[in-house]
């Protein structure tokens, strides 16, 4: 079955320290993977996407993710957390020609 798992429902980091949000996927389709961020009372915003080009993908706001086929992972990282990074993050995998499924989300808290 096609699925996406976000291993942590909540992550808390101190401002200025690294961020790691973990995602594992299962897809029988050629994988396209995305990370979206959702701030309270705001729409979903695309952070980055992988579409079978470079395995290390750079996104907006200093985020990046690495596609590892052998581990079926697409973890999101950022070297230094900022207060404005506090939000809900969703890992998303394309499961058919034009359909995606969302992971359950990881809530990121940033402590001053």
């Amino acid at each position, binding site marked *: 079955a096609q699925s996406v798992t976000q291993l942590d429902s909540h992550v808390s980091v101190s401002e200025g320290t690294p961020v790691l949000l973990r995602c594992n996927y299962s897809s029988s389709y050629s994988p396209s993977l995305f990370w979206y961020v959702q701030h309270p009372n705001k*729409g979903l915003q695309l952070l980055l996407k992988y579409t079978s080009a470079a395995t290390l993908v750079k996104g907006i706001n200093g985020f990046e993710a690495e596609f590892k086929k052998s581990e079926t992972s697409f973890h999101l990282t950022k070297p230094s957390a900022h207060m404005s990074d506090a939000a809900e993050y969703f890992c998303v995998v*394309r499961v058919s020609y034009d359909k995606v499924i969302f992971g359950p*989300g990881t809530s990121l808290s940033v402590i001053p």
Partner: protein
Amino acid sequence: DAGVTQSPTHLIKTRGQQVTLRCSPKSGHDTVSWYQQALGQGPQFIFQYYEEEERQRGNFPDRFSGHQFPNYSSELNVNALLLGDSALYLCASSGGALAKGNEQFFGPGTRLTVL
């Protein structure tokens, strides 16, 4: 460019009623997808419209129906509302197939509360 817009922003209904939510896609986009996001969960795919037809559908009952107009805007209709239909309903538009690397742009959502 206004991006994806949705109306209304909030809505309160009672069980058994019917509701219609509206979405205008980003300029230049022809594909509209609808998602339901229950509190504390990730968005769940409801269906997708392209060329005024439902092209894909998620695991939602027939109480959920939709429509796309010639100007690419779309409506989501839910009949016989249940308490469990309370959620944030998100609309997303794209300018082509996701398989070709196109991105979905999301609207701010409509918060539906069923009492």
